[in-house]
């Protein structure tokens, strides 16, 4: 061992740089097999050399350059647009209401036909609720039933059935089919299930076992922004029971939720922070 240089750093570097003769190289290789510290030094040097000698650093620079000009445009103004649309929507609604009300107060010679062909009395419209959030509907309410029937209104609102681009982008992968924990089965509803009018409030059930002690289920409608804001219509923490197996927890949960007609998504997640999506499916309510 007297031939072993004290400076292992230098020794390893000379070996890599081919600065050792045949005998010295053999001595180094023998030492390498026995000396863990030397091996650590040598391996790091080799790794650094391989990395900086590869094309990856150049690729990083190239990608950083491309990214600066070709990555998706920033959408800082999205919320502002949302507000602008909301304000515009409000203005249109007010304008519409004014238009509906106008015949009642208009001079008798003006638009006489319209006055007589209005099906819904103009004075009921201001009392009509804004689109009710399903979460609100989940709580039984003694709200007066004499208001306009729901079906014609829902049938008109096709926008509630338009798939959410954001959630759909998650659907096309295995998250829905298996998720992180394939032992979790959502028995009701199956994916793409349609609840008929007679099946409201909708019911769903989670069965199986997972490795998680608690899970969240969440219901979203087709509103992209709501999903991006992580603001589900309904969210609930479910605590599971210990199952027989090692570290497994059983789930057998069923519930009912009143939802207005539209397209919805059911998510089951490991935690509220949306890290592991265990299940994701879509269903319609007619």
């Amino acid at each position, binding site marked *: 061992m007297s031939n072993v240089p004290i400076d292992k750093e230098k020794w390893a570097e000379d070996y890599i740089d081919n600065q050792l003769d045949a005998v010295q190289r053999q001595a180094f290789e023998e030492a390498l097999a026995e000396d863990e510290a030397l091996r650590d030094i040598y391996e790091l040097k080799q790794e*650094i050399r391989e990395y900086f*000698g590869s094309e990856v650093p150049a*690729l990083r620079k190239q990608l950083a350059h491309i990214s600066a000009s*070709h*990555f*998706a445009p920033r959408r800082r103004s999205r919320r502002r647009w949302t507000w602008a649309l909301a304000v515009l929507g409000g203005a249109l609604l007010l304008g519409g209401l004014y238009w509906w009300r106008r015949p009642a107060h208009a001079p008798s010679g003006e638009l006489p036909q319209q006055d007589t062909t209005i099906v819904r009395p103009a004075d009921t419209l201001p009392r009509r609720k804004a689109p009710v959030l399903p979460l609100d509907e989940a709580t039984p309410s003694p709200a007066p039933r004499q208001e306009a029937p729901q079906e014609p209104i829902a049938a008109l609102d096709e926008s509630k059935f338009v798939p959410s681009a954001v959630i759909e*982008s998650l659907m096309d992968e295995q998250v829905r089919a298996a998720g992180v924990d394939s032992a979790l089965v959502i028995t009701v509803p199956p994916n793409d299930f349609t609840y008929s009018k007679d099946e409201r409030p909708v019911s769903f059930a989670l069965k199986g076992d997972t490795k998680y002690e608690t899970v969240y289920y969440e219901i979203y409608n087709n509103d992209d922004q709501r999903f991006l804001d992580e603001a589900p219509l309904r969210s609930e923490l479910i605590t599971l029971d210990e199952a027989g197996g090692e570290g497994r927890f059983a789930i057998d949960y069923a519930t009912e939720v009143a939802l207005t007609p539209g397209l919805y998504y059911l998510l089951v997640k490991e935690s509220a922070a949306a890290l592991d999506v265990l299940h994701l499916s879509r269903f319609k309510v007619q």
Partner: protein
Amino acid sequence: MDRYIQGIRQRDERVLIEIYSKYSDAVYRRIKGLGGSYDDAQDAFQEALIVIYNKSQAGEIVIHTTFEAYLKKVCHYLYINKRRKKDESTVTIPDAGTLVSEALPLDEELVRQERQNLFEEAFKQLGEQCQRVLGLYFQKVSMKAIQAQLGFVSEEATRTKKYRCQKKLEELIRSDERFGELSHKNKK
């Protein structure tokens, strides 16, 4: 082999731009949906392309789905991992294989990536001359040529400079608190 994989492997500028133009928006929406920022999405996208590059170079890439789905899965995985680390949780995702499927899990690749990031960061902390010496050395330029190019007095002086620079680089890498953890994982 997929045209995009081929393009990444060859660092084809046109293909890389096409990938950014076509898919970065979807990736941004995905990462945002997971609670990430614009910068998170940008980082994940870039890292994902490097992962794909590394895996294709190593002949480890097998895609049974579309390139877009695969890219989004890798970005998803990288972002979740980054977020977990931020939350001071574990680096690895035990069931990531199920989540991202295909030729994943990427745990090994991720450790490699993080070590490479560490190398890059340390390298940037070196002085300009050290960066130039090591840059040439790593490109396998001879000591004689480095001496001539950078104006050192002798080949030996160049070698000594290179040795000191590399030593400094390794010290910076080893002194980073991430290095210990990554070394441990690297040896698993």
